[in-house]
């Protein structure tokens, strides 16, 4: 029986994604939940990059989700100090596991991106090129694209208007 190496890699990443999703749901401390979601999004970006062959969406996932949205969540979480003294001793073994997972992910990224197995990576995937994506955005979905920009503008204004005490 031949075991495909891609399949093993996919299974490993899928298990990590599911474990971090479980962490979002079941960790007691909200900050740990947020960091677990951050790990989930980063591992999903690894799946997009290495298994689906679309580096553009992977980069966007890192920048938009991990860079912008998670900063929102962590900022608001740390703005309101919730339930002090609940997270000293209970989560001690989990911290070790997450550290181990971070080390393993780092090794994977070094191996995948490190150039040594580059042909191996490219041999397994053929993705959609970034040119096709941009062509679709600026021809067929141009109206949606502009509407999304308006939506984000209105959302930013509305967030300021909602969060301000007195306008």
């Amino acid at each position: 029986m031949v075991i495909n190496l891609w399949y093993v890699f996919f299974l490993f990443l899928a298990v990590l994604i599911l474990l971090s999703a479980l962490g979002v749901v079941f960790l007691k401390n909200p900050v740990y939940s947020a960091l677990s979601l951050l790990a989930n999004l980063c591992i999903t970006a690894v799946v997009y990059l290495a298994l689906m062959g679309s580096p553009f969406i992977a980069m966007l996932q890192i920048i938009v989700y991990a860079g912008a949205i998670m900063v929102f969540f962590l900022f608001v979480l740390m703005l309101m100090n919730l339930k002090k003294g609940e997270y000293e001793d209970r989560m001690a073994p989990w911290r070790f596991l997450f550290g181990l997972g971070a080390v393993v992910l780092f090794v994977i990224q070094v191996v995948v991106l490190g150039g040594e197995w580059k042909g191996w990576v490219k041999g397994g995937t053929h993705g959609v090129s970034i040119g096709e994506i941009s062509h679709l955005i600026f021809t067929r979905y141009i109206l949606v694209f502009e509407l999304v920009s308006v939506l984000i503008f209105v959302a930013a204004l509305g967030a300021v208007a909602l969060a301000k005490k007195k306008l």
Partner: protein
Amino acid sequence: MGVGLFQYTVLSVLVFLLGALGLMVRKNTIVMFLCLELMLNGVNILFMALSRHMGNAEGQVIVLFVMAVAAAEAAIGMAVITTFYRNRGGVDVGRAHLMKW
């Protein structure tokens, strides 16, 4: 035995279901928002898998729009939660009982 559409579908459904479970189980409003993002992420995985399976880029364009809408939703949600925290003194959903029947 390769990685096909089936495996990605199972993965995305599991992530989506975990997000829905967290939305129902947790009481902290911010963690509920995190679970909402988890559900969006599961949908994104399915869009990407289908886009790759069918070989066209429309799924990836939609993933782009889902990310933009998630960013807008996070901004509005955090503003609402900040106001809620200021008015109610906490972010527990049990404190939102003004319209409870």
